[in-house]
């Protein structure tokens, strides 16, 4: 079998499964656009209430609705964000902001990718490079 054939043999089923999952999620999303984005931060609510939320979540505070409540079982604090109708804030911005905020509150820092890059742009890796540039904006959060 050719090298391209081998790539397709394994890449296609994984890509198809990923695409099916994304399609199912996006179908669900169309009927569920009011759902909040929620993340749990491993810090007690009492600590977070006494300080300002850091990072990009603070920057969008005026454009979204943010609520904090204690997580059960000493798991920390649940931060929920709802994007109001007509807000200019995107779901990707909210996901990235929540992830950055969690990292800042838990570790004091946000991990940066390796660098400088060792990869080269090719026709076939362009979609993957685009996806990884927005790695904290995507997903299910």
């Amino acid at each position: 079998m050719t090298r391209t054939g081998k790539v397709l043999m394994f890449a296609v089923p994984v890509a198809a499964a990923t695409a099916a999952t994304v399609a199912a999620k996006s179908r669900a999303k169309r009927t569920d656009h009011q759902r909040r984005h929620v993340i749990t931060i491993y810090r007690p609510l009492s600590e977070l209430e006494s300080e300002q939320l850091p990072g990009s979540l603070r920057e969008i505070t005026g454009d979204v609705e943010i609520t904090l409540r204690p997580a059960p079982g000493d798991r920390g604090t649940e931060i929920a964000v709802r994007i109001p109708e007509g807000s200019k804030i995107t779901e990707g911005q909210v996901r990235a902001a929540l992830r950055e905020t969690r990292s800042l509150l838990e570790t004091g820092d946000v991990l940066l990718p390796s660098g400088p890059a060792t990869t080269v742009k090719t026709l076939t890796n362009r979609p993957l490079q685009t996806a990884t540039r927005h790695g904290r904006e995507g997903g299910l959060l």
Partner: protein
Amino acid sequence: MKALQWQGVNKLAVGTVPDPELRNPGDIIVRVTKTVTCGSDLHLLGGYIPFMEKGDVLGHEFLGEVVEVGPDVRNHRIGDRVVVSSFISCGNCWYCDQKLYSLCDNGNTNPAITETLWGHAPSGCFGYSHAMGGNAGSHAEYIRVPFADVGAFAVPEGVSDERALFASDSASTGWMGADLGGVQSGDVVAVWGAGAVGQMAARAAMLLGADRVIVIDRLPNRLQQVERHIGAETLNFETTDVAGELRERSGGRGPDVCIEAVGMEAHSRGYDQLKQQLRLQTDRPVAVRDAIHACRKGGSVFVLGVYAGFVDKFPLGALMNKGLTVRGAQMHGQRYIPMLLDRMAKGELVTEHLATHVMPLDEAPEGYRMFKEKDDDCVRAVFCP
């Protein structure tokens, strides 16, 4: 600097790439002195995990010398000899607090892919595709290590590089399988796969008090290593009825704990090969099926082998009706490495025999060919950048 780069499916080359930089204040830069192939790399090499880019640097199991430290690093100084956990973990999130380090919430800079595919994202790993953070790997002269105070460990004097190297991943993974698989004193434990991880899982089971440990493979040289260096029993699945033999050796009960250390490219003929050729499954779960079938009622199966996608004919009926506990994980190295280094220093855990082929980094493409084809009885190829 020189590095081994993924250039495409089954295509590797040593090239020149920029030196790594400190990117976060908790980073260190390590000059890699030993770095080793892993069976899970073959999934990347063969295109089974299609999240690689041309030019990515491979390698996640390594040891070296600290040459640069970030301003927030407290536990390491320039010149320290360190072994590094293959998974990158912050040490502060809920998962790290539970010692489930490979599930860290803050160690993967690119959680979208795995979150979409699996529901939640595991942490990042060195040299293991952009699904795991796209971190540059260790088959290079230098590597950046984030969260160094959490993931890098000083190697005690008296423990050789050749021994400590395997604490980075193989020994941690194997120990985790026996530990979280719940091995107890008096247990009968079966381990599928006599590669480095399987051998380490077998040794861990023995040290945790198992009464009998039986390792299953088809390669005579690996089974000989198990008998000689690990001290466990062996079964060759090409010449033995494994299920019958395991029943007989466990008083008809079946093994209490079954550890699968094979992964998605299990040796197989017939059904799974056909399914693969028809592109109807990505992973070949041959050893997992056997482990679930062989395990005693109410026993435990731990999946150490790496899987990426979907499998067919998973024996859910056996799992449910026999009351099994099935568990799996990428390795929580930070949980085990200090203890493993201590046991290595005492001589309880030996690993040097795993490094069957030691070579300069320039020869890494040939090292991977030998490793993949198991040429010249290769168990692991170790590179010295």
